[in-house]
Each structure stands twice: as structure tokens, then as C-alpha cells.
């Protein structure tokens, strides 16, 4: 057991903290609304190598671990950066694993933005694809075939975006929009897609963890400054105890995310340790996603509440976090469905 980050990991964390602090200021986040996409930030993020870092080296990546990706995603979430990081990484890693080298072209440098559809096609389209308004490539699974649709490059957004709670570049993607490439079918498609969705859950968990951390900072600094009845409101026990709960759950959420990343990096069926009771990588990704979603929203909601009337004004930043805390996890649908799926993973039939 070692819960410390290595020197290299600390360096990744520090570098991306600095990058997003500088490039994803709250002014830039606000300026990118309502679409929720900043083309310049996207180009710069690609310039850091972050999009392709998780691909194997022979696919043109750095072979970075899931833990490295999680560290980047946390920093991305801290600044609620207006770029689709979890989607692009999950889709790119899937293409690399599927050996679709042709489709990987132009992704690393940001010219082609890939994403993943989190629900199967219905009615001739993919509904509310994350980053669907700005992506040139989407990977989707219809239950049998895993395929990609590629649009020609052009002005982003490619389609009119659907205004939404989280100011995310969501859009429907008609199945006849773009050139279709078959990636896999049958059990291999199931596995590739499940792994990619697990990657998305893990990176979204990390992003929500970062979002949560900043929402908490906003709340704590507000309660330390705002006075009522002659004292700072942070001296009230009703406020302190709720903040303490958020800290503790948040610490647990971060550990869970790191453990889930570690499990995906080290998972080999033959090294599984059934006696320890440690859940497997798929269960941990699901747990990290659900628990971080829960903690992030609870934290943003409580910290908005502590802002009093200012919390509902658009001028205060807490609302930016509050809206995304609820909206980001909803890309996967009702979280309660995910709890159902997790139950089967966490309590396997004997």
C-alpha cells in the first residue's frame, strides 16, 4: 500500500494545474457559454499532448496510465474547462485499442475532435452526444456493432447546439451524418465499448472530483468572509458540520477515483485477489462515477446555499459549478440505472 503520488505524477498534476489555471480562467469559462466550447483552449490542450497521452506508444501516444489521465481530468474539472476532455480521451483510447489507426489521424493535434455516444442509436440518430456539436468523430455501439461516424472538418459547432443546464456542447447526431467505419462486432465490440464507457466514467469521476474541490473552496472562502449577526457565518455550527461532511466524503471520493484508476492500470484477471474483497476495476469505475457525482452535486448545492441570495445570482461563480455538477453525470442517463448495474457487479451471483 502506498497512497502517495510519484514524482512524475506530481509533475503531471502541477503542470496541468498551471495550464488550466492560466488557460481556463473563469472569464474564459463564462465567455464560452452557452456553447461550452473554447476552440483556442482546445487547440492549446491538444498542444500539451493531453489528448493522446493515454494511447499506446505505437499508436502515437505516450502510454500514460489511467492514473495520469485522472490527474489531468481533476485539474480540468477544477476549472470546469470548456473543452470535452473525458469524452475525447475515452473515444481516442477506444480507437487506439480497436487498432483503428486511420481514424486516429489528426486527433492528437486537436484538428479532429473525437467523442463517444453513451446511449445506443434510436430513431435514426444518436441522442444528445457529449460534445456532439463540436466533434468531428463519434464512436457508437448499437448492441451488436461498434462503429465510428466521421464528419468532414469545418466550422465548429457543426450543428446548432442544444442549450442545456451544464452549458455543454451536446447535440443529436444523425446516423447519416458522416462516413461510417465498422470497428468491431460481437463480444469484442461489447468489451471495447464497455472499456471505453468505464474510461469515460473514471475520467468524469475525476473531473467531478476537481469540480467538487473548487466548489468547496468557493463555499469555504465565502463563509469565512460573509458576516451575519455580527460574526462570520463560518462560525455557525450548522454550517461547519455540513462542510465537514463534504470534506470527508470528498476525501473518500478522491481515494475511490485513484483506486479505480489504479485498478484499471493493474487489472489482470489472473492476479485478482478474491480474498481481499477489493471490488474489480469495472465495479470501481462505476463506484467512483456514482460517488463523485453525488459528492460533487451535494458540495455545490450546499456551498450555493451558504451563499444565501448571492448564490442564485449569475455573478457569483458557484452557480457555474452547481449547474455542471448536476449536468455532467446525466450524460449517462439516470444515475439510478447505474446503481442497478453496479449491484450486479458488486454482488456477483455465487
Amino acid at each position, binding site marked *: *500500500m*502506498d*497512497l*502517495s*503520488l*510519484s514524482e512524475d*505524477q506530481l509533475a503531471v498534476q502541477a503542470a496541468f494545474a498551471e495550464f488550466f489555471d492560466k488557460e481556463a480562467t473563469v472569464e474564459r469559462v463564462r465567455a464560452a457559454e452557452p456553447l461550452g466550447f473554447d476552440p483556442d483552449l482546445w487547440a492549446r490542450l491538444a498542444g500539451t499532448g493531453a489528448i493522446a497521452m493515454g494511447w499506446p506508444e505505437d499508436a502515437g501516444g505516450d502510454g500514460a496510465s489511467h*492514473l495520469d489521465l485522472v490527474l489531468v481530468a481533476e485539474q480540468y474539472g477544477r476549472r470546469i474547462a470548456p473543452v470535452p476532455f473525458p469524452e475525447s480521451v475515452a473515444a481516442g483510447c477506444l480507437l487506439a485499442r480497436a487498432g483503428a489507426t486511420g481514424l486516429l489521424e489528426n486527433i492528437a493535434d486537436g484538428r479532429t475532435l473525437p467523442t463517444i455516444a453513451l446511449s445506443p442509436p434510436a430513431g435514426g440518430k444518436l441522442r444528445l452526444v457529449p460534445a456532439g456539436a463540436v466533434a468531428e468523430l463519434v464512436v457508437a455501439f448499437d448492441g451488436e456493432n461498434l462503429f465510428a461516424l466521421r464528419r468532414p472538418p469545418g466550422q465548429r459547432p457543426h450543428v446548432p447546439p442544444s442549450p442545456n443546464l451544464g452549458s455543454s456542447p451536446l447535440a443529436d447526431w444523425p446516423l447519416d451524418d458522416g462516413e461510417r467505419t465498422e470497428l468491431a462486432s460481437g463480444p469484442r465490440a461489447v468489451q471495447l465499448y464497455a472499456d471505453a464507457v468505464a474510461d469515460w466514467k473514471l475520467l468524469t469521476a475525476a473531473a467531478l472530483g476537481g469540480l467538487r474541490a473548487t466548489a468547496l473552496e468557493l463555499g*469555504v472562502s465565502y*463563509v*469565512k468572509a460573509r458576516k451575519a449577526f455580527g460574526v*462570520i457565518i*463560518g*462560525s455557525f*455550527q450548522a*454550517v*461547519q*458540520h455540513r*462542510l*465537514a*461532511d463534504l*470534506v*470527508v*466524503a470528498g*476525501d*473518500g*471520493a478522491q*481515494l*475511490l477515483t*485513484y*483506486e479505480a484508476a*489504479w*485498478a484499471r492500470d*493493474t487489472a489482470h484477471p489472473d492476479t485478482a*485477489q478474491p*480474498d*481481499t*474483497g*477489493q*471490488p474489480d476495476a469495472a*465495479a*470501481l469505475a462505476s*463506484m467512483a462515477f*456514482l*460517488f463523485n457525482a453525488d459528492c460533487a452535486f451535494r458540495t455545490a448545492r450546499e456551498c450555493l446555499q451558504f451563499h444565501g441570495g448571492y448564490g442564485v445570482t449569475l455573478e457569483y461563480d458557484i452557480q457555474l459549478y452547481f449547474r455542471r455538477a448536476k449536468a455532467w453525470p446525466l450524460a449517462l442517463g439516470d444515475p*439510478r440505472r447505474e*446503481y*442497478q448495474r*453496479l*449491484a*450486479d457487479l*458488486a*454482488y456477483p*451471483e*455465487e
Partner: protein
Amino acid sequence: MDFKDVDKLAEYRQQAREWVERHVEEDWAEQQRVSGSYHTPELHALLAEQGWLGAGWPAEYGGTDNDPDLAAALFEEIDTAGLHLDGWITTTMICRTILHAGTEEQKRAIVGGALRGKVLIVLGYTEPDSGSDVAAAKTRAERDGQEWLINGQKMFTSTAHMATHVFMLTRSNTEVPKHKGLTTFLVPLDGPGVEIRAIHTLGGQRTNGTFYSDVRVPDSARIGPVDGGWGVMHVALVFERSGASGRRSGPTLAERVAHWARQARRDDGTRVYDDPTVKERLARIAIEAEVSRLLGMRTAWVAASGALPGTEGSAAKLFSAESAQRQHWDLLDILGAEAVLRREAGDAPLDAAVDEAFRRGVVGTIYGGSTEIMREIVAERVLGLPRVRARS
């Protein structure tokens, strides 16, 4: 980062199991359950006689050559067999405190006696009017020449009716702020003026109220400096919160309920497990159990790297105690109408394991620092928010 929870005691498990099979009598666990006294004198004497209590302790104070890892595996195996070692747990906490704060003479006599199984120490902090505010203790200690006269009352002095000594926090000085007028003593429980009355709990435990009238002890019974009891308590409380091992022994309660839910059917013939609300509750329990395990792991990791796990320990205690209770409430609900059956009913689901966990779990958010105190520690020390509790 490495989250692998390696079982350091793996190679000792088999031997420990064999020891338990050979020496632990089958009815001891049931005796503890029925009596609510979580100490079995025969077992304690056996552990002492064979040198297991002294394993890993300094030889000059009675430590033995027994392998400390095997001893640790043995204690865990005893726990798995359903036997509590509460008397030994409080005794080791105070022995560690004495090694830290006691005189040479005390280390030899008390620690030595404890490792031989002759001294059994219980905790005397809480009083009728003070629990979390432990420094508000009113039990008086007054100097009388080379002796001290002790008068007052302690609450929840568990195992006192089977112990030889109580480690007691007393008020030795009423002229100074409350933290500065405390002195700790190790008071024999067999002397005149000590009265022990049983108190029974919701969780089936027998604890005690203990009364002290003109109890006379020599100055050599004092642990640490006069009026320096708060410093001694700091050491003792750290030993109280440095946690137990999270090793898993057999299926968890939630896994047992999940297994039950896969077989059991509701009145309408549907399988309990197929109810989405049941699955959701089980999934939430699995997540929180993992978070509790990780927060505990972090505390152990901080402790292993040589630091005192202050706020980490508080965070783990706060989350896991409350989470365990939520789990018990949900698991009872899932079991439905039969959940209320006690073991004596004969046909309780899972032999009333959930009912018993529910009852026992109630105290988890109260003892060892209530969750309200844990929240204040986190708010003050992690977030830097102002202290709410009045200073004396």
C-alpha cells in the same frame, strides 16, 4: 500509488486458525453474547500463560519471544470466532500510555503484570455529566500526605466488573482552567470505597457505572505529573483512535443479505433482489463500504509513515461509523417484516445478524469521540473555521 491491501499476516493465518480450533471453547462466544461482558477470563489467562500477550513488548517489562505477527493473527482469528477481547484492548492502550508517560517502577509492575495476565485495566474517562467534553471530569483527587483520596463517579466503565484496575481521569485542581487541573491515576478496583453497578445497553453489552468514595491510593498510582493529566490523555486518546485491521473474514453483512435476497421471494412471488430499490440500496452500501475501507487505509498509511493520523483518523471515524449505521437501517428494511426477529425467535433471517449489528452499531457514532466532535475537528483543523466550543 498502490492500493493493494496485502495481508501481511497471510502466512500466519493457518497456524492461528489451528490455535483457535484447539484452544477456544465453543460456548465462549455465546457466553459473551448472552452476558454482554466482552472478556473471557479463561481465554485471557491462556493467552498470557502461552506468552501471546507479551509478544512484541519490550523484554525488560515482560515482553516475550512469541512472534508478534503470529500473535496479531491469533487475536484477529479470535475476533473472527466471535469473541471480543475488550479487556485486553483497553489494557494495551493504557500499557502503551504508561510506556510513554509512566515511571520505571510503573512500567515494570503494571505493564509486566498486564502481560502476565494479572493486571486488567479499564477506562475511566466518562462521567455522568461529561462525555465528549472529557476534560470537564469532576471526580476529585485530593492529596493527603503521600496518598490521594478519590471521590466521584465514572460511567461506561466497561469490563470493570472483571478488571483489576481503572485508568482514571480526575480533577486534582479546581483553581485553574479545566484542562490544567487534571491528573490520571491507575486505581485498583478491589479496594474499599469502590462500587460497581451494572448498566445494560441496547446493543446487548453489559457496562458499568463505577462509584468511588474516599478511595485511597498511594502517590505511586499516579500516571504522569500532578495536574498534567491532559497531556497523558492526549497520548491515551491517540491509542484509542488508531484503528483496527480491516481484514475480511468471510462474507460481509451486505453480501449475506444480497445472497438472501437472491433466494427470498415476496408475497407476490417476485425475487427480493430483483426489486430495483433493493439493488440500489445494496449498490450504495457497496460504495460506502469501499469508501470507509479507503479512509481507514489512509489512516493506517499515515500512521505507518510515522505521523499521527489526527484529522485522517477523525474523517475515517466520522464517515465509517455513520455509513455503518445507514447500512444497518437499509439492510433491516430489505429483510422486511422478519427483520425484527431476534435470534431467540429461532427463525430470524440470517440468524438475526442484521438486528444485532443494528443494535451494536448505535454506539459507533457516540463512543471514541462522537461524530459531532469529529465534525468540529475537521471544520477547525482542515478548513480553518473558527472554534465553536467555548474554551475554559
